[in-house]
């Protein structure tokens, strides 16, 4: 499925802020990105699909929005 990926925080030093890619589920999406960008491997990440945080891999639908987020550092 073709999905929109949005990168946040320190990830914007590694990835484009917004881009499109194809993946069956979030696990495949992360695996592909980690191969393309070594700096991404073993990073602690929060993932939201369509603005909902996911704790386990989910299957992606066409046009889903996947947010990749490092630990928060507001305040």
């Amino acid at each position: 499925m073709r999905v929109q990926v949005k990168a946040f925080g320190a990830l914007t030093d590694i990835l484009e802020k917004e881009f499109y890619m194809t993946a069956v589920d979030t696990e495949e999406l992360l695996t592909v990105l980690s191969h393309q960008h070594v700096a991404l491997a073993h990073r602690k990440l929060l993932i939201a699909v369509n603005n909902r945080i996911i704790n386990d891999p989910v299957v992606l639908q066409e046009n889903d929005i996947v947010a990749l987020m490092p630990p928060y550092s507001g305040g």
Partner: protein
Amino acid sequence: MNKEKNDIFMQGPIPPERIATSIATHGRKYDIGAHSIFLGQIRADQVDGKTVRAIDYSVNRELALSKMAEIRQAVFDKYPLACMHVYHSEGLVQVGEICFFVFTSSAHRRVAIDACEELVERIKKEMPIWGKEIFEDDTHQWKTNR
């Protein structure tokens, strides 16, 4: 981007006058006996001999606003608050400027103080906000919260 309902984000620093206005506005609420306020300010931290000159805040806005609505509701459910105001900066804030403002009001002090502290902790921990520390030589590092 338009100011949405419950939007807590301000472009750049939070002006001190904003805080005075918030307090003055509440002088008309006669059931309030206590206000508790927390302000976060940009520190000129030293890292490996370099000095922070600003923090550039970025936000996952959609996720942040729904998370803030959830936190707001939980805190109002837990504490009998008369008022609650939260502002957080987005974009560049220079050292010495205010980037975070939490304001709670209630009849008695215990409630205002506890609610303010809980809001500060939850917002720092749960809100999808990232701070990019800009050094004086324009290099940067990403802030991490303790």
